[in-house]
C-alpha cells in the first residue's frame, strides 16, 4: 500500500469502520511510514478537540404539534361530519340571500302549508289597506286643507330659521375678515412709516457730515 492509497482509506481507520483486512494493510503501512502515521495521529488529536464542542443541554423539546394534532383533528372532522349529516337528514338549510345568511332548522314546510301561510299573509295585508282607506275617507275636505296649510306654515318657519342662522354666520365672517384686513393695512403703514423715518434720519446725519467737512475747509 502506498501513501495515496493509505489517505483514501484513512477515514475508515480513523472512525473504526475499516474491514479487518483493510485495517491490517493500513496498520502495516503506517508502521513503516512516519508521515502517514503522524497524519493519522494529528487527525486523532483533532477529533479530541472537536469533541469539546457539545450541544447546550437547554435546546428544549420540540412542540409535538404533528403527533397530538392528528387524533384531535380526526375527532373534530368526525364531529363536524356527524353534525352536518344530521342537519342534512333533518332537512335543515343554510342560504345566502341579499347579503345575509339564513339558516333554517328542520324540514322546509310542505307546499300546501306554504300556500296557506301565503294566503293568510295576503288577507292580513288587505285588511290593513282597507283600514287605511277607511280612515282617509272619514276625513272631511276642509280638515285636509287645514292640515296641509299647517304643514306648509311649519315648513316655512323652519326655512326662515335656517336662512336667519345662515345670514348671522355670514355677517360674523364678514366682520372678522374686515378686522383682519384693517390690521394688515395698519401694520403695512407702520412699516412704511418706520422705513421713511429711518431714511430721513440717515439723510440728516449725512448732511451734517457734509456741512462739517465744508466748514473745515
Amino acid at each position, binding site marked *: 500500500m*502506498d*501513501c*495515496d492509497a*493509505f*489517505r*483514501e482509506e*484513512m*477515514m*475508515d481507520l480513523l*472512525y473504526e*469502520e475499516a474491514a479487518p483486512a483493510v485495517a491490517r494493510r493500513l496498520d502495516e503501512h503506517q508502521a513503516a*511510514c512516519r*508521515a*502517514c502515521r*503522524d*497524519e493519522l*495521529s*494529528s*487527525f486523532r*488529536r*483533532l*477529533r479530541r*478537540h*472537536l*469533541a*469539546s*464542542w*457539545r*450541544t*447546550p*443541554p*437547554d*435546546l*428544549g*423539546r*420540540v*412542540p*409535538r*404539534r*404533528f*403527533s397530538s394534532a*392528528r*387524533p384531535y383533528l380526526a375527532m373534530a372532522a368526525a364531529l363536524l361530519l356527524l353534525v352536518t349529516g344530521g342537519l342534512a337528514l333533518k332537512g335543515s338549510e343554510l342560504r345566502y340571500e341579499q347579503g345575509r345568511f339564513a339558516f333554517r332548522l328542520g324540514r322546509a314546510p310542505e307546499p300546501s302549508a306554504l300556500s296557506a301561510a301565503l294566503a293568510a299573509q295576503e288577507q292580513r295585508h288587505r285588511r290593513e289597506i282597507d283600514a287605511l282607506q277607511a280612515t282617509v275617507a272619514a276625513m272631511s275636505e276642509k280638515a285636509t286643507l287645514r292640515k296641509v296649510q299647517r304643514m306648509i306654515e311649519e315648513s316655512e318657519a323652519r326655512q326662515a330659521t335656517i336662512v336667519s342662522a345662515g345670514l348671522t354666520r355670514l355677517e360674523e365672517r364678514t366682520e372678522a375678515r374686515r378686522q383682519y384686513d384693517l390690521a394688515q393695512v395698519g401694520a403695512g403703514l407702520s412699516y412704511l412709516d418706520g422705513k421713511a423715518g429711518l431714511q430721513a434720519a440717515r439723510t440728516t446725519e449725512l448732511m451734517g457730515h457734509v456741512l462739517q467737512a465744508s466748514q473745515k475747509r
Partner: protein
Amino acid sequence: MAPSDEELVEQFQNGDSSAFDVLVRRWERKVQGAIYRLVGPGEDVRDLSQETLLKAYRGLGTFKQEARFSSWLYQIALNVCRDRMRRGRGKSYVSFDELSETGDTGTEPGPSALELIEARDLSRQVAAAVSALPQEQREVVVLKEYQGLTFLEIAEALDVPLSTVKTRLYRGLGQLRQELVRQGVRGGTPVPAPTS
C-alpha cells in the same frame, strides 16, 4: 426489547400513529444537535427541528424503506437547514458570542477556573472553525463526527457516493486542523503531506 426504527415505521404505515411518537422521542435530540451545529444557536434550532419532524410526519406514510429511517430523517433536516441558509444568503448562523455564553463545554466535574476558560475557548474555536467550513464539508463533518452516522448512512442522507463522503470528510478535517492551528490551538500541529 424496543422495536427498531423500521418496525415503528411499519406500525405507523399500518395506522398506529403513536409509533411516530416513539420515533420522535428516539431521534428528536439527535436531529436538534445536528441542526444546532449546522445553523448555530438560537430560536431557529427549535423551529427547524419542528419543521423537520413535521415533514417527516407528513412523508412517513409514503416512505419506502429503501434507505434507513435515520438517513431519511437527516436528509430532511439537511434540506430544511439548506433552505434556511439559502434564505439567509448562505451564511451560517453560528454566533460565537452566544456560544461562549451557552455552550456546554463538556468538561468533567470539578475543573479549575483556568481549565474551564480554556475548555470554553476551545469549544468556541471549534464551533467557529466548523461553521467556517464549506457547506458540503460541514454537513459531512457534523453527521460523522457529532451524529456518529456511518459512511453508508451519510451517503444515503446526502445521496452521494461513499467515496465522495470520505473525500469531503478528509478535506473538511484537514481544513479544521489548519484553522485550529491558525487560532493557536495547542496540539493541532499539522504534519507534512505524506510522500510515498
